């Protein structure tokens, strides 16, 4: 067993630790939000609810996720493509890290100074300080550099290994970063072309509908950017952790390509309830949205096939006998498995949200907040947590002790219980109409709003349990960094012997990028032309 390259582990660890610092600060904000919403506390006069909410959204959805993802992908790329990063890739990784960190620190300062209480979606014509937009642009450009590092390593590997199939982890990392490059172009145009000149006062007005559309062109693939790395863990790592095999290499690759194609030309499903877009284009993008169900079904099948094959290889009998053979007491399996399990109802909720006219039932209610707390904040976050228990030992040359494993199990259970209360209450009270992104108010004790409050209290209870989970995960990271020295293998699954050879077209990048671009052009060109031709300029406002 070859140990992990030491200078690469610095880069990976720097990303992981930054991610969890963001999670911790974001968690404090989250806890306070849930307390405020239930009427249990009032914030001191100099802290606004919406400042906290902006910080929470930015730190959780943008910073925690992006840092962890870049760190995780770099670790796997280093491990599977030659055992260490090429100097160019490592440099790009560090430059990316530096830019993103400058951006993050700047952004958080501007938010806490109250100059950018525009939430993490920064909808125009609310006008934040230009430094907020510049901070976000730095984060995006930093992540691009990191993406280039991954592409560079991959291309060099392909050149040196002509005709060979690339390792699955690396292939999936390239798809993930490609998705990111293509989708962030939208938000980059919004921020650089529209918002920065406008917030500096160089131009007076902004095209609001266009800015929202550019944002959501990015906003939906953003969620797949979170999800795909979790899928990498499910497809590539989990089979090894349980001692089984990857069900099929080619289907895994195909499903990633389908995610690349169908997660971008679909942003209108976040704009279903708004004016300025014709119902035809909304419906068309709804249809494209639902195409991701196909690779999702493939993923579900592969996961359970891997589990069943493993259980049967261990002598399991009967239809469900294999369930008992799974390593339930191993946090490296249990945490991501809970993530997978929770993704079943979470995905079903997503289908409801995207259902065209049915979106009216849930749009901008707490249901939606409940939805993404079980998708990104549970399925994805628990998978990321589960990764820590082998990644940190593997890259720092340590071992996972039984005690750390147990603490990890406890952390996972705390997280699930907390989310059950918080997200469950959000889903239910959302159906009763309680709005999201709203500080405490009972609307002059309107009977409907008064009835929401018990659910808001349940949310606060869940939020408090979750905060214990945040503290415990931080404690666990410290524990992992101080675990006894030893060798831990970087778990990369092998493909099952029964699986067939992977066809070469899955690695014809030109072909897939071409189809992706064609779909985007098809779904967006006419609506964008319409928005630009019918521009109704709006001045900016500072309403906080």
């Amino acid at each position, binding site marked *: 067993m070859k140990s992990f390259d030491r200078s690469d582990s610095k880069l990976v660890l720097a990303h992981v630790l930054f991610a969890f610092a963001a999670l911790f600060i974001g968690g404090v904000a989250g806890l306070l939000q849930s307390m405020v919403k239930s009427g249990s506390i009032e914030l001191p006069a100099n802290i606004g609810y919406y400042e906290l909410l902006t910080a929470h959204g930015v730190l959780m959805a943008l910073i925690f996720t992006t840092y962890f993802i870049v760190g995780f992908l770099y670790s796997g790329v280093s491990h599977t493509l030659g055992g260490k990063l090429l100097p160019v890739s490592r440099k790009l990784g560090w430059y990316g890290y530096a830019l993103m960190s400058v951006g993050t620190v700047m952004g958080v300062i501007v938010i806490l100074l109250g100059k950018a209480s525009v939430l993490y979606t920064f909808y125009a014509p609310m006008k934040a300080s230009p430094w907020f937009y510049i901070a976000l642009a730095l984060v995006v450009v930093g992540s691009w550099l990191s993406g280039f590092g991954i592409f560079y390593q991959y291309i060099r590997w392909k050149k040196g290994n002509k005709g060979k199939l690339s390792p699955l982890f690396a292939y999936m990392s390239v798809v993930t970063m490609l998705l990111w490059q293509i989708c962030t172009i939208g938000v980059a145009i919004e921020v650089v072309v529209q918002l920065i000149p406008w917030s500096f006062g160089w131009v007076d007005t902004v095209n609001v509908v266009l800015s*929202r559309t550019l944002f959501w062109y990015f906003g939906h693939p953003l969620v797949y950017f979170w999800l795909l790395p979790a899928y990498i863990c499910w497809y590539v790592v989990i089979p090894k952790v349980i001692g089984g095999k990857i069900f099929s290499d080619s289907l895994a690759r195909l499903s990633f390509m389908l995610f690349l194609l169908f997660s971008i030309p679909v942003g209108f499903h976040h704009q*279903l309830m708004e004016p300025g877009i014709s*119902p035809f284009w909304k419906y068309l993008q709804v249809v494209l949205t639902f195409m991701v169900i*196909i690779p999702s079904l493939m993923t579900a*099948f592969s996961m359970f096939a891997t589990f069943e094959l493993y259980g049967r290889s261990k002598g399991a009998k009967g239809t469900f006998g294999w369930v008992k053979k799974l390593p339930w007491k191993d946090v490296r399996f249990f945490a991501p498995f809970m993530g997978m399990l929770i993704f079943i109802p979470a995905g079903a909720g997503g289908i409801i949200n995207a259902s065209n006219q049915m979106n009216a039932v849930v749009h901008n209610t707490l249901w939606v907040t409940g939805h993404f707390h079980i998708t990104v904040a549970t399925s994805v976050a628990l998978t990321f947590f589960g990764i820590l228990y082998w990644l940190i030992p593997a890259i720092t040359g340590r071992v996972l002790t039984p005690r750390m494993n147990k603490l990890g199990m406890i952390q996972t259970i705390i997280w699930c219980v907390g989310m059950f209360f918080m997200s469950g209450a959000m889903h239910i009270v959302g159906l009763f109409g309680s709005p999201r992104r709203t500080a405490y108010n009972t609307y002059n004790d309107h009977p409907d709003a008064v009835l929401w409050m018990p659910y808001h209290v349940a949310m606060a209870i869940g939020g408090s349990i979750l905060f214990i989970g945040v503290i415990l995960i931080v404690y666990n990271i410290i524990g992992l960094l101080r675990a006894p020295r030893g060798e831990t293998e970087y778990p990369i699954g092998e493909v099952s012997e029964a699986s067939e050879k992977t066809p070469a077209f899955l690695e014809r990048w030109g072909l897939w990028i071409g189809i992706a671009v064609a779909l985007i052009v098809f779904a967006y060109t006419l609506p964008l032309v319409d928005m630009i031709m019918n521009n109704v300029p709006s001045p900016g406002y500072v309403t906080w």
Partner: protein
Amino acid sequence: MHLHRLEKTWLKFGISMLAVFLIVLGVMAFSMGMKPPSEHHHTVDPTKVAETAPFDNPGLNQIGKNHYEAVMTAYAFGFEPAVPLEVPVGSKVDFIVTSSDVVHGFAIVGTNVNMMIVPGEVSHVTHTFDKPGEYLILCNEYCGTGHEFMAITIVVQ
């Protein structure tokens, strides 16, 4: 590419359900009048809302038997008209709403009325109030510090 026999069945079933579901959604939207709100293109200069018809005279107008038109302007942090609207039970109300500043939301609790109000655009939605009560109309898109206070009511009796 090879697919396992069971996986083929699984995908066939899943994809057929998906097709049925999308057809149902499409038929309901386009031939049963259940499109998402604001289907018509209708714009207004957001800096001149108060001078532009119909928003120069916000309020409730009767336009037919049991049929009303509610012209409203959303602003940080309230709605024009600021007094509760009143309609008889069974009334059909066409809401015509725009914003004179930032983006707002417009949701009526206990109904499926839920739409975005975007400056420069006019949002339209129609609802028939079959049950009496005092309905809460609230802004459900963050619009600034006073966002949580942005609400009025519509009384159906």
